[in-house]
Every structure is written in C-alpha cells, then in structure tokens.
C-alpha cells in the first residue's frame, strides 16, 4: 500500500466539490446524533432508499459525513441536559454537564466541538497515512488483550467514584450484573431475564442510557426552576460570542491532550466490535490518571471533557480501517456502509485500494473534509444551542421524558423498551438521590456483556484454562500498564494528601 500523494491532493480537492452533499449530511448527523435512539447506523438504515439511489461515491460521502457529525451531535445533549445521544458519548456528561450547570454550557460546547473536530481530523489523516500499519492492530488485539482493554474502561468506575469508593464499586458491579442479563454467547442460555423475551439479546443500551440519564434527570430537576445554578443562570444571561471563543481557546490550549486521547480512540476503533463507548471511557480514565489535578475531574474540568470527545471521534476514523483493509467492519455503522456499497457491486476489502482507490481513500478524505466543514458550521451555533439550558424545567422535564422514551422505542420497536427505560429511570433516580453515580452503572451495563464475551471466548479458546488471560506477551504488558494506571494515582493521591496535611495542619472530619 504505497502512499500516492498526488491522489490524496486530487481526492481532497474532489471531495470539497461535494460540499452540497456533506453539509446536509452534517446537519442531519447532528440532529440524529443528539436524539437518543437514532444514531448514525439507524439513520443510514432509515435512509437506505436514498443512499441506494445515489452514486456509490456520493452515497459513501453522505454516509461518512453523517457518521462523523452524528458522533459530535451526541455530545450536545450530553453536555447541555446530561443526556448522551449515544453510548459513545456516555463519558461526556461527567465533566460537560457540571460546566453547563455553572452557566458555562457555551464554553463546554465549543470545547467539545473543537476537540471532536481536531481529534477527528487528526485521526482521519493519521488513519490515511498509517493504514498499512494500523490495519495490523486487529491482528494483535485478540480476546485476551481485549479483556484488558475492557478492564481499563471498567476501572473508570473506581475513578469516578473517588468520593466513596465502596458505593462507586457497588454501582459499577450492579451495572455489570445488569449487563449480564441475556443469553450467554456460547450456549445461548437465557439468564436473569425475568422471563422476558425482549431481554434475551442482552439489555438494550438505548433504554438503559435514556432511563439512567434522561428520565431520572427529568424527575430530579423538577425541584428547581432550571437546571442551572443561580450563578450559572446569571452567567448564561450575560453570555455572548466571547464565551464561544473562550471555549475554543481553552480547547486549543489542550492540543496535546486532544492528540493523545484521539489516538486512543483511533487504536480502539480499529478493533472490530470495540466501539466508541469503551474508547471514551478508557480515554477519560487515562486522562485522569495522568492528570496533575485528578481531583477536579467530575466538577466541570476541561480535560475531562476534551478526553472523551476527542476519543470518540478518533473511533470514527478507526472503524473504517478494518472495513477497508480486511473487509470486516469495525462497528455497526461501518457494517451498514458495507451493505450499501455491496448494493452498488462494490466489494469492500483490500482489493478496493487497487480497484477503486477513489472510494477506499475517498472514505477518509470525505471524513477529513466533513470535519473541516463541520467546525465552520457548528461553532457559531454553540451560543444559540446553549440557551436551551435556561428553559424552565416545567417545560423541559416533560419534553425530555416523552422524546427520550420514544427514542428508547425506536431501535427495536418494542414498547417493552419504553417500560425498560422507565425502570432504569427509577434506578437512576434512586441512585442520584442516594449518592450513587449513574455513569458507573451505565459503564457496567455497556461493558459487562463485552467483557463477558471476550472472557468466554478466551476461555473457550484455551478450553477452560483460566491462565489464558496471561498467555500473550502483549496482553501481559497491558496487564502491567493496567495495574500501574490503577495504583499509581492511588499512591500519588495519598502522597498529595499527606503533603497537604503537613502543609496545612487543619483537622477535618472526613
């Protein structure tokens, strides 16, 4: 796979001429990304008749643009109203929403947009250049290595529950148990389903997401007039363009953070089946681990927002690599893109680079151009979008409840899923009221089945030998890194506390 610079330049120039396809796709992507239940994959399915009627090149550009912008769209409600549009944005509200409550929703949106766009742009270009090497990642990250990656994500439970580790762990492990509902992957035995057929295929993510975040939030916020704090409301009323620029400036000041967290996303995205949720959890966890101010995470910290947003956009470029290089889609959206291309007689796989390089490389140039156009279109909107937070909860709560519950219905068209979302809403409400972190429960629900899947596969491969989890060199290196990333912050934290106690001899009652 030689790099042909002339072709790249030509492709970029050509892709820009399709701005009339990309701009509507961006707009649509932002909307469907922002509404739980829609997602790029579902939207591409809904729009199949349209994409099938297009020329393959235009169809591909449209799908790629929709995919990339939906990822960014998912962050908007996550920041503004604490409702991630997709599981990939589940780590975004951890610091995005506290910023909104402080009246800095506009800055938070700008930070998210800049991180998403630069993370996405960078990883797309990296993907384009490093494809021959990146495509090898999937050959090395097998079940055993994926178990460790999952544990990296799950260890975030302990990280975000720093205030009361015991309660944090209970929330996370409860989530994991809920994630284990459904048929096992080897013998298809239904487990913990309460006899509901609708739960045989695991707990559906959107109802869990909608219930834990949106429904429970709606029931909690009705106590106040708006979701903002008093000071936050004052700040919002004064806000103008300057706040957007402040957000841009803040995000750019963390350029290095954007780079490395988006690369985490890219690498995880290359592994078939891993996905944006795990990437953003791992990026957040790593960001906190290496931070000098880990105690600020969860309070509206800049880096806590930059990390997941850069990472989940890094995944977007990553998932295209296995699709194009080994013919195996990296995720659901990529799989549906493959179906559309197939309708046009385009067989995805390594030969595409020889037979139709304009399509194979074009997928990446389309993504890069999308990101470039996206920042111009979306940034000016931050100011207006953030105004939604001043809407009174009298109107906001019922709207959130009805539209997100219907969103829970959309992916599978089971009314059961709406009841399920409501049940998760009750769990989320109880959790919020009694000091448990809903994000910890959700991490468990999302990663539990993935972890079990890889774990059972590894056990099956080793024919029951549990030591298989230490059987690979790469895996063992990753285990060591996992242990370091878990214990070093603990040690540093203790040291910091000790030092601060020595410095300020105040006795506190913790």
């Amino acid at each position, binding site marked *: 796979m030689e790099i042909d610079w002339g072709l790249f330049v030509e492709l970029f120039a050509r892709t820009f001429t399709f701005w009339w396809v990309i701009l509507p796709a961006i707009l649509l992507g932002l909307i469907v990304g922002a509404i739980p239940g829609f997602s790029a994959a579902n939207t591409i399915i809904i729009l199949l008749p349209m994409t099938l009627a297009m020329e393959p090149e235009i169809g591909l550009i449209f799908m790629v643009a929709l995919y990339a912008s939906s990822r960014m769209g998912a962050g908007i409600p996550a920041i503004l109203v604490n409702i991630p549009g997709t599981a990939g944005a589940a780590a975004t509200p951890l610091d995005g929403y506290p910023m909104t409550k402080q009246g800095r929703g506009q800055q938070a949106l700008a930070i998210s947009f800049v991180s998403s766009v630069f993370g996405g742009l960078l990883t797309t270009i990296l993907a384009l250049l490093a494809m021959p090497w990146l495509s090898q990642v999937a050959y090395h990250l097998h079940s055993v290595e994926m178990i460790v990656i999952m544990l990296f994500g799950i260890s975030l439970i302990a990280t975000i529950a720093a205030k009361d580790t015991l309660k944090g762990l209970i929330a996370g492990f409860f989530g994991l148990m809920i994630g284990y509902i459904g048929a096992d992957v080897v013998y298809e035995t239904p487990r913990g389903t309460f006899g509901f057929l609708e739960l045989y295929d695991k707990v559906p993510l959107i109802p869990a997401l909608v219930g834990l975040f949106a429904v429970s939030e709606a029931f909690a916020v*009705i106590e106040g007039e708006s979701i903002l704090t008093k000071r936050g409301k004052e700040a919002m009323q004064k806000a103008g363009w300057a706040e957007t620029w402040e957000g841009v400036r803040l995000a750019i000041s963390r350029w290095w953070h954007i780079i490395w967290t988006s690369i985490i996303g890219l690498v995880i995205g290359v592994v078939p089946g891993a996905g944006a949720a795990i990437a953003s959890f791992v990026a957040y966890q790593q960001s906190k681990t290496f931070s000098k101010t880990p105690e600020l995470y969860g309070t509206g910290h800049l880096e806590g927002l930059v990390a997941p947003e850069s990472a989940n956009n890094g995944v977007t470029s990553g998932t295209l690599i296995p699709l194009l290089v080994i013919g195996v889609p990296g995720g659901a959206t990529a799989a549906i893109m493959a179906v559309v291309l197939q309708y046009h007689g385009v067989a995805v796989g390594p030969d595409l680079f020889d037979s139709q390089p304009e399509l194979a490389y074009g997928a990446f140039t389309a993504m890069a151009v999308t990101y470039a156009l996206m920042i111009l279109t979306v940034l000016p909107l931050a100011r207006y979008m953030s105004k939604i937070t001043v809407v009174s909860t009298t109107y906001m709560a019922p709207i959130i409840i009805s539209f997100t519950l219907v969103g829970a219905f959309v992916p599978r068209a089971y009314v059961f899923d709406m009841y399920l979302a409501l049940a998760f809403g009750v769990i989320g409400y109880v959790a919020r009221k009694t000091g448990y972190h809903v994000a910890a429960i959700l991490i468990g629900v999302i990663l539990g089945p993935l972890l079990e899947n890889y774990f059972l596969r590894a056990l099956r491969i080793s024919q029951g030998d549990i030591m298989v989890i230490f059987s690979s060199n790469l895996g063992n290196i990753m285990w060591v890194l996992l242990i370091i990333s878990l214990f070093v912050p603990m040690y540093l934290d203790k040291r910091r506390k000790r030092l601060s106690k020595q410095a300020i001899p105040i006795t506190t009652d913790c």
Partner: protein
Amino acid sequence: MSDENGQNSGKPEKHSAGAELVLPIAGLIFTIYYFTTIIDVPWTAQVSAFFVGTILIGLIIALIVRTTLAVRRGDSSWSVAPLIAPKSYVPKRLALLGLTLSYVFFIEWGGFTITTFLFLLCAMLLLSGGKNKGLILSLSLALSVGGYFLFIVAFNTRFPRGPVETMLHGVF
C-alpha cells in the same frame, strides 16, 4: 450530579444511611435471582456472573456492615428521607410518574402524536401548577405535530403509530 440530597438547613442531622441501602438491596435481590437462573447451565454461562455477582454481594455486605456500625456509633440513622426529599415535591413527582406510566401504556394504541400531545399538556400543567395554559397548549401542540412531521413523515421512523398516524398516512 447527585447534589439534591434534600438536606435541611438548621440543626445538624444524622446521615440518613437507610436511603443508601435501597439500591444495594435491590442489587442483592437481583443478584440472588440471577444466580437462581444459572444454577443448571453450562459453566461457561456461569463463570463471569458468579465472579462479578460474588464481588457485588461482598461489597454490599461491606456497606451494610459499615452502615450498621455508623448507626450504632450514632453518626447515621436508618432514615430513607433523602429518597423522598424534599417532601413538598412528593405529590408532583408521583403524579408525573403516573402520567409517564400512562403515556407508555397508551402510546401503543394511541400512537405518538396524540398521546405525546396529551402527555406534554398534562405534565406541563401539573408542573406549572395550572399557570401559562396558552403557552403550554401551543407548546404541546407544536412539539407533537412537529415530532409527527419530522420523525414520522420526513424520516419515516418507527415511532409508535395509532389512529392519527393511520388517518394521516395517506395525506402525507
């Protein structure tokens, strides 16, 4: 996020630890139920869940012990007050829950548009205490009709459909 613990100002209160046990006890009951469903299955279907479930039970027992000791020391009480605090919102919250349940129950037959309109109208009136009727009526109408056009007509999404959607199917 969970900053609404409803603690009253004034005299210092004991930590209401009882409320904190609601979720763990639900988790405990669920885990035990889950275990009963995997007793008679191949070990591959058991191993992960037994591992995670056992840790969860251990954690919950630790929390119960911690809470019991704190109550004995007199630092905490078994009160579940934070769960329902502030009390003045209990009727509104229960009514909203009832409305939401009815919404899900009726949407299967009534379809998205009419059921959403009625839900938004009733829920907003409930929360506003009957104020701003005109605004609420127009907002509910705009959102449900807008939702119909955007999601059902334009996107042809699988939203719940009922008599209104069927009737209008031929028109749009």
